């Protein structure tokens, strides 16, 4: 694969050598922490004490943090502006001209930002440390449909080609005099001549691909062999079960906190 549509970084780290399902379980645990930890600050703790050390262990920390920053920044800024400044009827703690920062809004924004950063960084941790084909193989071996694995992997290979194609069409139409800059109406009018060739060309192509797969017994049921070999250990199997239990515990804790006051009342 020349260019792949993924931020995966190959490294010889312990994190990378883990079985893909173990990494999936770790990331799912981080995700559950992000989504279900109560309070305002705990998600930040999960990010600093679990996700960042895992990324450091994988040896991808600088590019990982850059990606988290890039993805999270627009939403984090926006949540502080929108919810912090426009919270209806909150307690103002700082006046900024006609607007004021509300205490309730600020608290909501801090909680939301922590949750968002934890969720985004969990997904990115999986992306940076897990080969897509390894993950799909591991899932197929556990009874996940082969066709879905094919769809995921084929997509990752097709997207970069399509992006090149889209840019070629953009250049071609521009050289024919198509206006792609200017006011909104001009840009909207440019839409169709750009979208149409990309759509029709790529849809017509698939017939040949379908025939190519058919003659290679793609639709045949039964076990398939793979070039990739995955390593699993008993310790990792135990760890996966423990992570599953920990996830249930966190969700249970959150549910308890939500229900307990109502039971007491």
């Amino acid at each position, binding site marked *: 694969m020349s260019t792949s549509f993924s931020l995966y970084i190959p490294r010889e780290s312990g994190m990378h050598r883990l079985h893909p399902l173990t990494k999936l379980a770790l990331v799912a645990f981080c995700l559950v922490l992000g989504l279900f930890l109560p309070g305002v600050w705990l998600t930040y703790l999960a990010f600093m004490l679990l996700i960042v050390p895992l990324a450091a262990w994988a040896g991808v920390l600088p590019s990982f943090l850059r990606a988290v920053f890039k993805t999270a920044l627009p939403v984090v800024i926006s949540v502080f502006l929108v919810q912090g400044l426009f919270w209806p009827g909150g307690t103002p703690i700082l006046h900024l001209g006609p607007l004021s920062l509300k205490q309730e809004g600020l608290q909501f924004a801090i909680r939301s930002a922590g949750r968002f950063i934890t969720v985004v960084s969990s997904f990115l941790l999986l992306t940076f440390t897990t080969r897509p084909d390894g993950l799909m193989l591991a899932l197929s071996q556990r009874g996940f449909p082969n066709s879905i694995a094919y769809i995921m992997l084929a997509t990752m290979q097709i*997207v970069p080609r399509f992006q090149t194609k889209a840019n070629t069409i953009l250049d071609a139409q521009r050289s024919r005099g198509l206006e792609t800059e200017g006011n909104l109406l001009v840009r909207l009018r440019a*839409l169709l001549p750009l979208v149409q060739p990309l759509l029709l060309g790529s849809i017509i192509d698939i017939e040949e691909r379908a025939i190519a797969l058919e003659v290679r017994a793609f639709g045949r049921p039964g076990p398939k062999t793979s070039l990739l070999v995955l390593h699993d250990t008993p310790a990792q199997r135990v760890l996966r079960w423990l992570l599953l239990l920990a996830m249930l515990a966190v969700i249970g804790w959150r549910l308890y906190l939500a229900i307990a006051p109502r039971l007491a009342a």
Partner: protein
Amino acid sequence: MERLRRDFSTITLVMIPVAIAINIAIGQLIYTLKVPLYLDSIGTIFVAAVAGPLAGMLTGALTNLVWGLSGINSFYTAFWITGAVIGLVAGLFSRFGWFKVWWRAIIAGVITGLIAALISAPILTYVNGGVTGSGTDVITAVFRNAGLGILPSAFAQGVSSDPLDKAISFFIVWGVIRALPLRFLDRFSRAEDIR
């Protein structure tokens, strides 16, 4: 079961990755044009039209998963449910022949957009704190300032962009179906619903 096997024929399974790639490539192209639209579900709607609601659901859900897990737009992953529902609804409209006439396709798009906004709003509220991190957050701020809750404001923001976006997407898919040769469309399981 037989219907399911026919919906997920090899041609559909080959179409789905291409459709996902169309979603992503056009989605990013639109971003460079700086038009206030997404157009990132044209592939999903096309698959739903030619191969039924379930194939559409799969395409929509996997678009968000692949796009998100590629690391380009990580938080899209959480919106896989919205993608799935867009595919489902588009497939149902196709089932009842709404892709045969252009204005019906547009109405179907508006309704799908409203449903998409309805599904996205709770996810947006819980995962993103009610904002998208893009220009449409101004609308959320206006509604918050007017005293609306976080969830209704997030929904209002969706309503301001999703129905128009899906109406245009449905119209484009209607045009694509007209432009494709019948011989090609007939390879799909739901060809009789769209011609």
